[in-house]
């Protein structure tokens, strides 16, 4: 068996240098809930593991410019337990709560959920709907990218070799805003999304929706931002008619696979239903935040 080197850099610069200087395959280790299983199965055989949990920027959850920034390697449990974050972003929090068991959430991270690039990742549609921006560092320095631009297909991201997602920024919340995430699974816990839907919307003083973002998971090769579905809400009071048009637009955006957990037709239908229901929850939350 080949020796696997293990490093625990304390700064982003040293993490980037370690990844850039690796002779064989190198992997970032955060929670390890995907990576250790892949290594055990022999699907990934890295020569170097770079454990980034000792880098302060990677694990901090802080208020920043009226919004929130949380480290890509903060655990799901740390995020769920952050009361101020959960109050501001209940939809993102609900999505993170759906990732695995308590034990898995004690290790798993949102950065890992994104970079593992499963089309069914629960936190990703919620982050896309929230308008989250990822901060990335690599050999070429730091850059920012919208979350929807990072996954490109199953197990594949747009990150360049040696790049690491450092953190996520969620923008300041205006009054009368709410977000929600729903997923369909055959079981209530410990399952993988057949369809996921995230909605984030803002109402004006008269109750008209003036901003909306809608994202779907598990209905394409990656989580989708669906502007047509958001457009069905903007300029309306999010009434039944608008919700029906949202559902139709969400279903129309799907290009799913069929597998043992759901047929193509089922996923397309359920995507519309979940988007409609998530919009209803987001609407209730927005009205309560007035």
């Amino acid at each position, binding site marked *: *068996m080949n*020796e*696997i*080197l*293990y490093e625990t850099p304390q700064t982003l610069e040293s993490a980037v240098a370690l990844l850039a200087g690796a002779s064989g395959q190198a992997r970032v*280790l955060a*929670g*390890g*809930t995907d990576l*250790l*299983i892949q*290594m*055990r199965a022999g699907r990934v055989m890295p020569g170097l*593991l770079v*454990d980034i949990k000792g880098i302060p920027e990677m694990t901090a959850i802080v208020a920043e410019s009226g919004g929130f920034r949380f480290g890509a390697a903060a*655990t799901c*449990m740390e995020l769920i337990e952050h009361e101020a974050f959960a109050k501001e972003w209940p939809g993102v929090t609900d999505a993170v709560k759906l990732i*695995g*068991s*308590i*034990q*898995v959430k*004690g*290790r798993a991270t949102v950065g890992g959920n994104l970079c593992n690039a499963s089309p069914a990742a629960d936190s990703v549609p919620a982050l896309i709907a929230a308008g989250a921006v990822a901060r990335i560092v690599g050999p070429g320095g730091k850059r920012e990218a919208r979350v929807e631009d990072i996954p490109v297909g199953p197990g594949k991201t747009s990150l360049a070799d040696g790049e690491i997602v450092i953190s996520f920024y969620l923008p300041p919340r205006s009054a009368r805003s709410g977000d929600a995430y729903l997923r369909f699974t055959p079981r209530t*816990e*410990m399952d993988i999304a057949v369809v996921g839907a995230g909605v984030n919307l803002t109402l004006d003083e008269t109750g008209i929706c003036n901003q909306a973002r809608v994202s779907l998971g598990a209905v394409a090769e990656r989580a989708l931002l669906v502007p047509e579905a958001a457009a069905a809400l903007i300029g309306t009071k999010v009434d039944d008619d608008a919700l029906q048009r949202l559902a139709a637009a969400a279903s129309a955006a799907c290009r799913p696979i069929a597998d043992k957990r759901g047929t193509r037709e089922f996923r397309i239908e359920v995507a519309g239903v979940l988007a409609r229901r998530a919009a209803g929850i987001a609407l209730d939350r927005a009205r309560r935040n007035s």
Partner: protein
Amino acid sequence: MSKHHVTTTLNGNAVEFLCDTQQTLLEVLRDELHHTGTKEGCGTGDCGACSVTVDGRLVCSCLVLGVEAQGKSIQTIEGMAQGTSLHPLQRKFLEHAALQCGVCTPGILIAARALLARNPDPSEEEVRFWLAGNLCRCTGYNKIIEAVLDAAHEMRGS
């Protein structure tokens, strides 16, 4: 091949061990430190049999590398009873016959203790959701839930 020299705290006692990078904390606990109370079930984080706490955080030890234990505080089932005096959860598991084959039991006890540490008065639903990551193929779960609720009741009273 050079091994990692790891110093950590196991159930309050300082311990050190040597391990390869790919050895999990579960393998280290069982094979290097001979603490075999923590069980291996699936090895992929699905069953919860290998549950331990790391710095108070409930995790599957099969999804943690041994080398990651450096400087951490690990709690396993071996640290639950005080000498011959069982923890209330352990006593209630016996009273309620909340185990049969026993392979899931150490993980469930560790998980239940972590729940009661943060929520001393959980509802039945909260116990069921918290323990969703601990599979038991013998009991049908009801006796486990009853034992946890009864232990919580006793621990609140004392």
